[in-house]
C-alpha cells in the first residue's frame, strides 16, 4: 500500500504542477481585476472599480451582455438545427452529392476567417440582414458547421442501426425515428456541438466588428476592445482584465455545468478520425 502510494507520488506531483500552471493565468487575471493599479478606475485598495467602468461604458454592460446572449442563443439554435439534420443525412442516407457537400462543409475550416467577412458583409446587405444580430448569428453558425456536422455525423454513426430500424418498423417515418429514437441517442453530441457554438459566438470579435455598426447592437467582446484603448496610446489594463473576467465567467460556468455530458459527447461520438 505504502509503496504503491509512493509510486504514484510523481504522477500527482506532475499532475498538480501542471494544474497550477493551467490555473495561474485565470486566477491572476481575476485577482488583478479587483486590485489596485495606477491608470485604472481602481487606483488603490481592492474593489470593483474596474467593473463599474465596464458597467457604465457607452451603452452599458447589461446591454452588451444581452446582445451577446441573444447572438449566442441564436447561433447555438441555428447550429444545432442544421447540424442535427445534416449529421443524420450524412450518417444514414445516400444521396447525390453527399461526399461533395461533406467535403465542402469541412473546407470552411480552411478559409481564413477575415477574408470571407467582406463578401459576407455585402451579402448580408442584400438579404437585409446587415447590422442585425440574426445576420451575425447566421455567419457565426456557418463557421461552426465543419465541427458540428462532423461531430453529429459520427454521433449518428455510433447509434446502432437496429435501434433506428426498429423504430422504422414500428411505423415511424424517418422523421419520427429521428425524433423518438435518434435524438436521445445523440444528445451528448448535441450538447458538445451546442457548447462549442456558444463559446465561439460568445467570444467572437472580428465578425461583429465588421457586421455590426451600431453601439446598441454590439456584443460584449467589441465593447471590451473599445474600452481597452482609450485616449491615444493609454491602455486601461484594469478594465481589460475586468472585461476578460466578465467574458470568461459565463463560459466557465456553462462548461462546468455541462461537463459530464460534454465529455460523454466526445466519448460516445468516439471521434473516429
Amino acid at each position: 500500500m505504502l509503496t504503491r502510494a509512493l509510486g504514484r507520488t510523481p504522477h500527482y506531483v506532475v499532475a498538480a504542477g501542471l494544474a497550477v500552471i493551467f490555473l495561474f493565468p485565470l486566477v491572476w487575471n481575476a485577482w488583478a481585476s479587483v486590485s489596485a493599479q495606477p491608470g485604472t478606475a481602481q487606483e488603490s485598495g481592492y474593489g470593483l472599480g474596474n467593473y463599474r467602468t465596464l458597467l457604465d461604458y457607452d451603452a452599458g454592460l447589461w446591454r452588451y451582455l444581452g446582445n451577446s446572449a441573444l447572438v449566442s442563443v441564436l447561433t447555438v439554435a441555428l447550429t444545432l438545427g442544421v447540424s442535427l439534420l445534416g449529421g443524420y443525412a450524412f450518417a444514414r442516407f445516400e444521396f447525390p452529392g453527399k461526399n461533395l457537400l461533406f467535403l465542402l462543409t469541412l473546407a470552411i475550416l480552411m478559409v481564413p476567417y477575415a477574408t470571407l467577412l467582406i463578401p459576407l458583409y455585402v451579402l448580408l446587405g442584400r438579404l437585409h440582414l446587415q447590422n442585425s444580430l440574426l445576420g451575425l448569428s447566421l455567419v457565426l453558425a456557418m463557421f461552426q458547421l465543419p465541427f458540428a456536422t462532423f461531430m453529429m455525423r459520427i454521433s449518428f454513426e455510433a447509434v446502432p442501426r437496429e435501434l433506428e430500424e426498429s423504430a422504422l418498423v414500428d411505423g415511424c417515418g424517418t422523421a419520427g425515428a429521428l425524433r423518438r429514437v435518434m435524438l436521445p441517442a445523440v444528445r451528448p453530441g448535441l450538447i458538445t456541438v451546442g457548447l462549442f457554438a456558444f463559446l465561439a459566438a460568445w467570444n467572437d470579435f472580428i465578425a461583429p466588428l465588421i457586421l455590426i455598426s451600431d453601439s446598441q447592437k454590439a456584443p460584449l467582446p467589441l465593447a471590451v476592445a473599445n474600452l481597452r484603448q482609450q485616449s491615444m496610446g493609454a491602455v486601461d489594463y484594469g478594465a481589460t482584465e475586468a472585461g476578460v473576467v466578465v467574458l470568461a465567467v459565463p463560459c466557465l460556468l456553462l462548461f462546468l455545468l455541462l461537463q459530464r455530458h460534454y465529455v460523454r459527447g466526445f466519448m460516445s461520438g468516439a471521434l473516429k478520425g
Partner: protein
Amino acid sequence: MGSTTGPRGPVRRLAVGAAAFLAAASLITACGSGDGDSAGGSGRTADAKGVDDGATLTMWTRAATRPQSEALVKAYNASHKNKIELTVVPTDDYQAKVGAAAGSHDLPDLFASDVVFVPNYTTSKLFADLTERIDALPFAASLAQSHIKAGTYEGRKYVVPHTLDLSVLFYNKDLYRKAALDPEKPPATLADWDRQARAVDALGGGVDGTFFGGNCGGCGVFTWWPSIWAGGEEVLNKEGTGANLDSATAKKVYDTYRGWVKDDIVAPGARDETGATWTGVFPKGKVGVMPMPSTTLGLMPKNLDLGVAPIPGPDGGRSTFVGGDAVGVSATSRKVDQAWNFLAWSLGDEAQVNVVAAHKDVVARTDLAANKYSAADPRLVAINQLVADGRTPYALKFGQTFNDPNGPWLSMMRDAVFGDGASLEKDNKAVTASLAD
C-alpha cells in the same frame, strides 16, 4: 422541433435558401458596377448653418477620441432638434470598419477619422464636398489649417477638424529641481534636451532621462518628425510620394535618440514599446522630459508638477505634429444639410469654448487659443498657440508606410536608433517605394 415538421422544415428552408441564393447570385454581378455619382450636396445650399429639423444622424468615431466626440455630441443633442447617434469603433480596427462599409455604400452620415488617413477617404470619394460651406464660415481662416489641408483633394475641401492632438514636450519640474536644472527653462534645442535628460538620468534611483515608443511607427512620426521640421527640413515631398528621412537634420535627431539608448538614458521598455502603453510612463513621475500627446494633459496626476514646451529642433525652432481626428459628411448621406448643422455648430465659439476648451482639449480655431478656460492654465495657451506652427503630413499611403507595425518606417526607426544607423539611405528608399506604391 415540432412534431410533424420532420422533412417539412428542410423544404421551407430550401425555398428560403433558393431565394437567398438568387438574391446573392445577383450581387456578384451587381457589385461590379459602382454607382458613380457621389458628389454629395456641395454647393446646392451654401447655408453656413445647415438645417436643424429633427433628423436622426448616425456618426462613427474611433475609441481613442471617444471622450471628445461624446462631449460634443451630447451638447449638440441637448440643444438641437437633430439627434446624433454616435457609434464608437475600436481604434485598431477603424480602417477595417470604414473599409467594409464603404464597399457597400453603407457609411454613416458623419464619420471622423485619424487625420493621417483622411487622404485615403477623400481620394476614394467617401466624403461629400464641403468646400462652399467651409469657406462661408465666418472663422474659416482661423480653422486648424493642417487639418483642412489634409482634407483637401483636387482643390475641394472635405473635412473639418474634430479633435486636435498635438505632440509637445512634458517635463517633470520636481525632477528638474532635484537635478539642479531650472524648472522654468525647458529645452530650446535638441542639445538642451539631451543635456537635461542626461542630468535628470544621473539622479539614479529608478529615475530616467526620457522615454519613447521604440516599436511604434506612429509614435515615431508623432514625436520625432517635429524635431526635423523645427530644424527647417521636410520629411515628405508635397505630393506625399517620396520621403526625405535620411537628411542631415533627420540624422541628427536619430543620433540623439541613439545616444540615449546607448547610454541607457531611456526608461526600460522603450525598445519593445508598441505604442500601447507609451503614455503611461511619464505620469509615474520617474521620467525627466519626453514628448507626449497634448490630450493626455488633462489625465495627468494632480500632484505631478509638470511643464509643457514645444518640441525643438537640433538648433532651436519649434514644431508639432497636429494629429487627432478630422470629420466629414459621407458622400452617401442623404442628410448633408443636417450633418453640416452639427459640424458648423461644433466649430462655433460656444462648442469650442464651453465643450472643447472646458475639457482641457485643444481648440480647433487659432483665434480662440486664449479663452476663459485656457486662461486658468498657461500650459493650454502654449499648446493652443502651437497649432499654427504645426503640421499634418499628407500622404495617400501614410498608414501602410508609417503606422503599419510591419511597414518600412518602423524598420527604419529601429535600425536608426537601436542599430548603427548605417542603413538610412536604403531604408529611406524603402519608405519612398511604399509611399509611391
